[in-house]
């Protein structure tokens, strides 16, 4: 990984997401340079409180992604419930209410695929705990575009189906514990 330059991180998680992110995100220090875009599966009619919950725990600014917003480094963005989150070529965000993918809106695959298209090799894709297969296709897209791919070690995840599916799609992905992912994310920016 030495010498590689990254611009953004995309993270996908489902069942067990809050717990996993509560370990991972607060570990990132103030001034951390990469933009972090996150899709987690939530019931569609719930007002999202994720940004609020994480805001209280994190050194980095956390917000719900807004349509046509420019992506800023060092900021954590959550997809709003019931909308897909997409990355445009000019590194701005779009929301969409297209049909759910794998019963999910927001869809991890859609975020990962569009981010891979926009960032190419300057993207890190991370799949955490979850109980379905959303994200596997997206992680493959990150890999195919030259990006780095990381998966939470399935046996350490609250729900292993999502990391297992991701590893099946990307057998060479690095499987790490949450603590290791947190230090990986810091190492790549100091490399």
């Amino acid at each position, binding site marked *: 990984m030495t010498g590689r330059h990254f611009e953004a991180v995309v993270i996908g998680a489902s069942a067990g997401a809050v717990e996993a992110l509560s370990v991972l995100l607060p570990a990132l220090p103030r001034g951390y340079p990469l933009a972090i875009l996150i899709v987690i599966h939530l019931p569609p009619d719930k007002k999202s409180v994720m940004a609020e919950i994480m805001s209280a725990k994190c050194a980095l600014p956390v917000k719900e992604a*807004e*349509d046509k917003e420019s992506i800023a480094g060092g900021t954590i963005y959550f997809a709003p419930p019931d909308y897909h989150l*997409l*990355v445009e*070529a000019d590194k701005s965000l779009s*929301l969409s209410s*297209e049909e759910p993918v794998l019963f999910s809106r927001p869809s991890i695959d859609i975020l990962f695929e569009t981010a891979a298209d*926009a960032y190419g090799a300057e993207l890190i894709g991370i799949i955490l705990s979850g109980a379905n297969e959303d994200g596997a296709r997206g992680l493959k897209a990150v890999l195919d575009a030259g990006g780095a791919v990381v998966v939470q070690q399935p046996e350490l995840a609250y729900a292993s189906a999502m990391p297992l599916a991701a590893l099946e799609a990307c057998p060479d992905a690095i499987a790490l514990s949450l603590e290791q992912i947190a230090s990986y994310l810091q190492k790549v920016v100091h490399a």
Partner: protein
Amino acid sequence: MPNKTDDIELKLMLEALYQKYHYDFRGYSLASVKRRMGQAREHFGCKSYSQLQDRILHDASLLPKLLSYLTVQVSELFRDPHYFKIIREKLVPHLRTYPSLKVWIAGCSTGEELYSFVILFREEGLEDRTLFYATDINPEALNKAEAGVYEVDRIQLFTENHRRSGGKSSLSDYYTAAYGAASFDKSLRKRVVFSDHSLVSDAVFTEAHLISCRNVLIYFDRELQDRALGLFKDSLIRKGFLGLGAKESIRFSNQADYFIDFSREERLYQKRGDA
């Protein structure tokens, strides 16, 4: 690296669609268009967008199918019930003061939003004085809107939404179910004009008291959003109302100064008296 050849071909394809058929997707948010065009490409069995372009240019009969991929047609009756609750409780009292009303459902797709409004207006005793305009660019979607037939397994959600919107009647009063389909009553369409209209290229056609256009602008880029919002401003009467989707806002648009918040949370705006 991302496949930039794809992007070139996609943009050429959108240009071709515009020049040949006057469907203008050039100002749409590209990430979403690209995804959906990719699905269309797969459906038509084409290896590249250039190949797809070739087929579409030389065979107009493929156009409706392509449009059904490019335009998003996902909605519910009384989607975001709270939106309709606020309209019922806060906006209807204003509308009652007018002897006649025009309501424009812009980008009505397959009609779910339209039927929600007609039912709400009937419940509130406003239907008979109202003319509804339901417009979309996709003729197939308009046909479905005009037919008013939905899969019966969606009715449970529609019913729950209607109830949560403060519905004063039973949704089952408005449809008949048979063979897995729910047909909405034709009386709901007697005050409705269905029409082909593009927010990208067409002009003002009415003076409306209320325009509802939800989850349409998110597919546009900033410039096109501004155009559509300008069109809405020019299409509204003084102090007319505009409703947008839950994640859409007029705040960052160059039209923001012409509107005031009516219900911020519900994305309901009112055109200023002096605009």
